[in-house]
């Protein structure tokens, strides 16, 4: 089954399941376009063909009730189409792969049943249903995946869920669609659909290459944890300090004191980032305590050190 083709109104679809939305959309669009043309066209016609001189009495007949009945019929039809599609998308098939999704300002963390995790990038196998179980660590968020026309509110202390089945390899962007603070428009990521075998390989190693140097592992971890959302590696200004030529230098903190950027400071900045914040930056970095393991932290520090 091929996904529906992109149209003037809708983005490229990532799976055939998008056609459920797209056909409902097309129906609503045709109905509304027809009604709009009817209303506006009639009005223009009446205005253009207005008589000069005395106006005859308007004839009413059953016009009002007929129009009410017609509106109700149209509306009932659209509701029915909308409801059926709604029910279909809510019930995941048995055997769907469950993935726990945690939204926290401003990143998305994904956890797989075998303990593998990723940040910002949701890897899924082609041809298999995936069920996302979403929760928030702080405020309301909204997970929006336009390529599949799917969205779910993500609430604190509650779990909502959403399922889909990718049917071809590729990437689909997702974003937060519920205003949650200054980093809201950066709270994005992508779904990466991979052939099942590649996905299983990734899942086992959690994306690690056993032959990589610590700095190389650190680089991959930095990508996995999406550090570059706020920290550039080339010196450009972002929400957080750049990593380029950072290690081994002194920086001024928000309280006016100076500190040497050594391994200890860097580790603290990952685990408890808002303890000592560099001057000129806001304390908005999420804490990675419990998310990053000790070996991962070592690798990340090695990578940061390598960026002279």
């Amino acid at each position, binding site marked *: 089954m091929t996904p529906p083709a992109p149209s003037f109104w*809708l*983005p490229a679809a990532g799976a055939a399941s998008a056609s459920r*939305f797209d056909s409902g*959309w097309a129906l*609503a669009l045709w*109905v*509304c376009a027809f*009604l*709009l043309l009817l*209303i506006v066209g009639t*009005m223009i016609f*009446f*205005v253009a*063909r*207005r*008589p*000069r*001189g*005395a*106006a*005859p009495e*308007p*004839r*009413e007949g059953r*016009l*009002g009730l007929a*129009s*009410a009945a*017609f*509106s*109700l019929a*149209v*509306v009932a039809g*659209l*509701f029915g*189409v*909308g*409801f*059926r*599609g*709604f029910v*279909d*998308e*809510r019930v995941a098939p048995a055997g769907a792969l469950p993935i726990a999704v945690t939204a926290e300002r401003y990143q998305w963390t994904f956890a797989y049943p075998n303990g593998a995790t990723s940040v910002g990038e949701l890897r899924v196998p082609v041809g298999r249903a995936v069920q996302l179980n979403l929760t928030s660590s*702080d*405020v309301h968020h*909204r997970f*929006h995946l*336009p390529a599949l026309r*799917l*969205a*779910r509110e993500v609430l*604190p202390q509650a779990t909502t869920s959403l399922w889909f089945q990718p049917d071809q390899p590729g990437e689909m962007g997702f*974003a937060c*669609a519920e*205003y949650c*603070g*200054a980093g*809201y*428009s950066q709270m994005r990521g992508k779904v990466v659909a991979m052939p099942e075998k590649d996905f299983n390989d990734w899942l086992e190693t959690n994306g690690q290459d056993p032959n990589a140097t610590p700095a190389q592992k650190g680089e991959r971890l930095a990508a996995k944890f999406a550090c570059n959302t706020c920290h550039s590696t080339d010196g450009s200004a972002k929400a957080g300090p750049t990593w380029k030529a950072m290690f081994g230098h002194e920086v001024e903190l928000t309280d006016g004191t100076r500190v040497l950027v050594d391994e200890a400071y860097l580790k603290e900045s990952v685990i408890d980032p808002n303890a000592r914040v560099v001057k000129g930056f806001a304390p908005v970095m999420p804490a990675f305590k419990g998310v990053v393991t000790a070996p991962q932290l070592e690798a990340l520090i090695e990578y940061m050190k390598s960026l002279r």
Partner: protein
Amino acid sequence: MSETSSPATQAGAPDYLAARRGVASWLLTLDHKRVALMYLASVLVAFALGVTLAQLVRLKLLVPGPALMDPDTFARLFTVHGVVMVFVFVLPAIPAALGNFLVPLMVGARGLAFPRLNLAALYLYWTGALLLVTSMARGGADAGWTLSPPYALVSETPVLYTAVGAAVLALSSALTGVNFLVTLHRRRAPGVGWYRLPLLLWALYGTSLVQVVATPAVAVALVLLAADRSRGLGMFDPRAGGDPKVFQQLFWFWAHPAVYLMVLPAMGVVSELIAVHAQRRISGYKLVAFSSLAIALFGLAAGGQHVAVDVQGPRAAAVSSLISLLAAAPFGVLIVHWLSTLRRGAIRLNAPMLYAVGFVAIFAVGGLSGLFLSMLSLAGHLSGTVFSTAHLHYLVVGGTLMAFTGGLLHWWPKISGRLYPERLAQAAWAVTFLGFNAAFFAQFVAGSRGLTRRTFAYDEGFQFLQAFSTVGAWLLAIGLLMTLAVFVQSLRTGAAAPANPWGGASLEWQTSSPPPADNFAPGPVVARGPYDFAPAPAPAASPDATPAAAAV
């Protein structure tokens, strides 16, 4: 036309503007017309502020990446824009600025039932507006005009002032609602039966009902939010065992009918504009009157549609969806009857009629776009996008603004005693209409393509549509400035207006332009209904020919 010079102008009684002078005579007035003018001046200031904030937001959105301001400022700008527009401009505009002026005149009364309550409502309005100005001076809230927890609880912006200000403004509107309801029930002149009321009054009746019933819900929600923030009460804070969903249910119990409150008075105005400028009674009067009430009642029942599907559960969501779709029926009735009235009517295509026609077109788009958002299978993808933004702006800006401007022009001779420059007004309409559609239709397309709302940074692929929308907004701003020029020019050089320049048949046209302080001197003659228009005279017989009358 015998109504063009009424006894009042001949008696030489001073009009309500000249009757008493001095600041105190305005600030302590019991004259509903003066209160209306003070509301009018206030809402126009609020509108200018709201437009300015919107222009700043749209300016940033010309480019996809960071520019002009930081994301935090951006959020404050769009939040304050929404709060000011909704609470300080749109909600009071037609009921308080036009309604206060017209309700007693249209029922043949000397004033509202409770003149002091009216003044109190005005002062509450100013108090609420002042609280909002204070919150702006402290940086402005950033939680969106809907101020939803949990974000509204953790935001480090002055949500408290905004919440309390909004609650006070809502309360003010409830007092006006009470005043209108009692006036309509108890102050109608002899001979003015319910079915002899202009349809604007039926619309204001429905509006007032909703204001009185629903306002307590939002006041409670906002006061509790304020208590959560200032005292840590914990009603809506999940960390304290509270539930943010409760806020949504309370807030939207008021806020959904509130959006109908923004549109229902507008539809009442449109009925008047079409009737008078096509010189025909509105077809299906009773059905239209009861549809106005039905819209108000549907509004009260349909609040749930705004509570996110996943917050309220699928069954409740389905019920909300169904109710909001059913509300299409009374709207359909209104549109059909307006069209039937226009059919073979002696339409004069002057500025008020252009605004009425513009309203129908834009309202049709806005209402129909609501159908998409009410379909459960489509709502998820669309509602977090600018498709929602376009939908609400079509209804509120396109709808209410069109009707408010058209109504202001239509009753301007009565209110000010001056005629306005017709050609300029028509040109202003055209630019406004074009600019508005350019600005907001692009957002339907961007939304269905996936552009999230309230977003500071966006994917480059959306830049064309964003820029298109911004340029449209500039055009709209030019149109609004032209509209302002119409009124300024009228005040400076406008010709004196006769009592009834348009040939209206409702009672406000039986008194001078502007009216005396006690409205009718002597009382109105209620010999016929509000839409029993006199047949058009031969042009030579009418000494008070105005540009509009001459077109008949």
